[in-house]
């Protein structure tokens, strides 16, 4: 048996850099540790500040999901201040959040994920030359259009929010803008341009409506073969290529999922409360664990710091959460190895578990039985998981499936705006209270908890999708979702372990990775890699 320890440093960027250490035995990863390598201390900065400081500060946690940070920070205040949000305010927030995600899907796919598909590792594939022609960085025929046109959906964000990234235009009680006719018509035209030039023409090779007819894995396979246009679209090609190079065979992860849900039905959320949240969601929330669906309940979330560079000995709900850093050099002595905390969910009957966040988690939540008429009900990915099991491929398809889905929703919300109605109700700025806000960033569940006292922030805690996914082991020694997903990954060439990049990047965790390979026995460094990646 040959054993290798690979040290991947760094592999991340949302809450900072991420290092990954894996042990490889006989060409397969047998254990993994994810280590967030950078700390800025936003939760510490927010303490004692103006109640609305989170609207300015939290988007700067991550410039990739800045609009999502703003969205949930705003709902945390809406619930704490018991505001009224007019339907137009909810619609504009929905549109903006969705446009950030529509931007992210192609930008992520071409600039950060697909460039690995041209790795020489796959030169044996009969489809390799075509992959290079399409996906090669900068010069690939699909890369150029995909990356350049990804800037279009956020033009719509700028029309309502002034700019993307880093606007703070969502405020308790609604939004700052009072859009006019041309703002709405131009937004419609920009989105249609993006659909006509990328989504339908290049990605799907068919209409959005045709794609949305797909309800099962068998349907999807039939769709690929249905005609030349679909077979040769980027999506049709990606499905064929992914199956050829085996992206459906590894990277499964923990198989348990969390979605905090996002987008509200305006009429059901004019007075945002934590209690009414699940029912008002269009993109459903939910937890799926050990084969069962559960209602999402934020009170069941707790953060564990046993392996994180913070003081503290027990799991805390974020309202009681603490952020007290310690020098990593000292922390390492007591087995700590990451700046990420380990979020865990108390699953009824099973106890605290790590859960995967992201598009696949959202697709599983959308496959749950029941659900109200206004809610997303979509069985496709429950069927895909049933037939294929979780993998890099299924996670990618879940993300890409959301482009046509969210496009349709966004167009619908634009059409529902009544421009002569109100966009904002001035709230009463309560001196104290507790709030909770959440959304789905492109890459998963993103949640804020705020405690206000005497007109200022007493406590502010954020759990990001990357923390859900890259968080380290907990006090029970249970690895986090990416740590679990890396196990079982086959590594064809330890000098160029592109498969690790596929798994890490399939979570879209904004990763930059330098991989150091060590001989497991002698500790001798064999090789150093940058598995370059996700912003």
């Amino acid at each position: 048996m040959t054993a290798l320890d690979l040290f991947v440093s760094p592999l991340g960027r949302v809450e900072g850099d991420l290092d990954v250490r894996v042990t490889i035995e006989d060409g397969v990863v047998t254990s993994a540790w994810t280590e967030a390598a950078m700390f800025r201390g936003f939760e510490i900065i927010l303490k004692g500040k103006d109640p609305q400081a989170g609207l300015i500060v939290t988007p700067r946690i991550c410039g990739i999901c800045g609009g999502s940070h703003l969205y949930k920070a705003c709902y945390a205040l809406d619930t704490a201040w018991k505001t009224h949000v007019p339907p137009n305010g909810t619609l504009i927030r929905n549109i903006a959040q969705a446009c950030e995600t529509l931007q992210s899907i192609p930008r992520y796919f071409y600039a950060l994920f697909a460039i690995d598909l041209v790795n020489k590792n796959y030169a044996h594939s009969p489809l390799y030359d075509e992959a290079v022609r399409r996906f090669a960085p900068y010069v690939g025929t699909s890369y150029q259009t995909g990356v350049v046109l990804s800037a279009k959906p956020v033009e719509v964000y700028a029309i309502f929010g002034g700019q993307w990234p880093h606007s703070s235009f969502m405020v308790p009680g609604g939004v700052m803008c009072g859009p006019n006719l041309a703002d709405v018509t131009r937004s419609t035209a920009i989105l249609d341009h993006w659909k006509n030039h990328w989504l339908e023409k290049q990605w799907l090779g068919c209409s959005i409506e045709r794609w949305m007819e797909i309800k099962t894995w068998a349907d999807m396979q039939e769709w690929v073969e249905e005609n030349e246009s679909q077979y040769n679209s980027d999506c049709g090609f990606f499905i064929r290529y992914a199956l050829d190079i085996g992206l459906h065979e590894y990277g499964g992860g923990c198989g348990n999922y969390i979605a905090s849900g996002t987008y509200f039905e305006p009429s059901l959320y004019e007075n945002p409360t934590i209690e009414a949240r699940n029912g008002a969601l269009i993109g459903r929330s939910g937890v799926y664990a050990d084969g069962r669906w559960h209602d999402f309940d934020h009170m069941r979330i707790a953060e564990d710091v046993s392996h994180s560079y913070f003081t503290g000995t027990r799991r805390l709900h974020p309202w009681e959460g603490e952020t007290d850093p310690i020098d990593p050099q000292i922390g390492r002595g007591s087995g700590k190895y990451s700046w990420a905390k380990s979020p865990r969910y108390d699953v009824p009957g099973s106890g605290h578990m790590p859960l995967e966040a992201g598009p696949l988690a959202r697709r599983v939540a959308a496959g749950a039985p029941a659900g109200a008429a206004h809610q997303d009900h979509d069985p496709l990915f429950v069927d895909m998981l049933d037939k294929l099991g979780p993998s890099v491929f299924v996670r990618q398809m879940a993300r890409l499936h959301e482009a046509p889905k969210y496009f349709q929703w966004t167009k619908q919300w634009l059409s529902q705006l009544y421009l002569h109605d109100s966009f904002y109700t001035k709230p009463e700025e309560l001196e104290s209270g507790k709030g909770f806000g959440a959304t789905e960033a492109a890459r998963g569940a993103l949640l804020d908890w705020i405690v206000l006292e005497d007109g200022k922030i007493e406590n502010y805690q954020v759990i990001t999708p990357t923390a859900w996914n890259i968080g380290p082991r907990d006090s029970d020694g249970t690895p986090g979702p990416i740590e679990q997903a890396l196990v079982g990954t086959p590594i064809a060439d330890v000098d160029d372990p592109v498969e690790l990049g596929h798994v890490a990047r399939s979570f879209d965790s904004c990763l930059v990775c330098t991989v150091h390979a060590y001989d497991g026995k002698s500790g001798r460094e064999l090789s150093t890699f940058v598995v370059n990646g996700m912003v």
Partner: protein
Amino acid sequence: MASVLWFQAGACSGNTMSFLNAEEPNVVDLIVDFGLDLLWHPSLGLELGENAKKIFTDCAEGRRNLDIFVLEGTVIQAPDKSGRYDMFADRPMIDWINELAAAAQIVVAIGDCACWGGIPAMEPNPSDSTGLQFHKRERGGFLGPDWRSRSSLPVINIPGCPAHPDWITQILVALATGRAGDIALDDLHRPQTFFKTFTQTGCTRVQFFEYKQSTTSFGEGTRSGCLFYEYGCRGPMTHSPCNRILWNRQSSKTRAGMPCTGCTEPEFPFFDLAPGTVFKTQKVAGTIPKEIPEGADHLSYMAHAAAARIAAPQWSKEDMFVV
């Protein structure tokens, strides 16, 4: 062909995301048409494995020519100036920054964080973050006030949270096409061509400012009025071209009804976001703005304001940006 190495330290990646929104040139044009040799970038780099690490060390040790070193994100010095709160490729990031800044012909700080510390450096600055050559408005920062690059230039600051893609691409194109000599810097090392004007220059609300007419609420209230009087807008005191070179080719925060937060100035976020300061104009005696347009004094400002209010025509009190 100019070689560029782009690193992210205490960063959110917002400047990279902004950069990717660029058109004329877009990121593909920059590389394919302008021949920018992007040696490595956290999101866009091509090289994997040994090759990438080799690029960093070759540049740092002078074996490979590095024309432009771009830093995005704060310089994280904690704990105790060791830099261990930000490790990159097995070393504190500050060690890479030191070596690469010394090796590069030109060093460019992109975004507030790299320029002067930005949001992470606000009180109580838990990561001991600072900018490359400024800490907030104070000269020095990580490299020191007298530091100069190999081409005898100080760090070129392109601030903003984030910086606008055009501010980044046009400066990179200027440097790459031998126009470094045309880049005149102000006393904060910002290219004057972008930062001489005010955010207010070109703002669609400037007529309301002229007649001292305030916006009355967010939402539909922003169809009229100026955001300076009640909502803390810093447009008249902030240097940027946000209303000359629009964001995402469409708009700007002030046009869309959001008060300028002054994010191209070293003090951002202003007042350390103390209670009562967010989206609220700070006033003297309950009515007079504490801060007034650059270069004005309170007495003449008040006289001007009183006359302007008397002169205000009826349309300046009505909605202008109507459905």
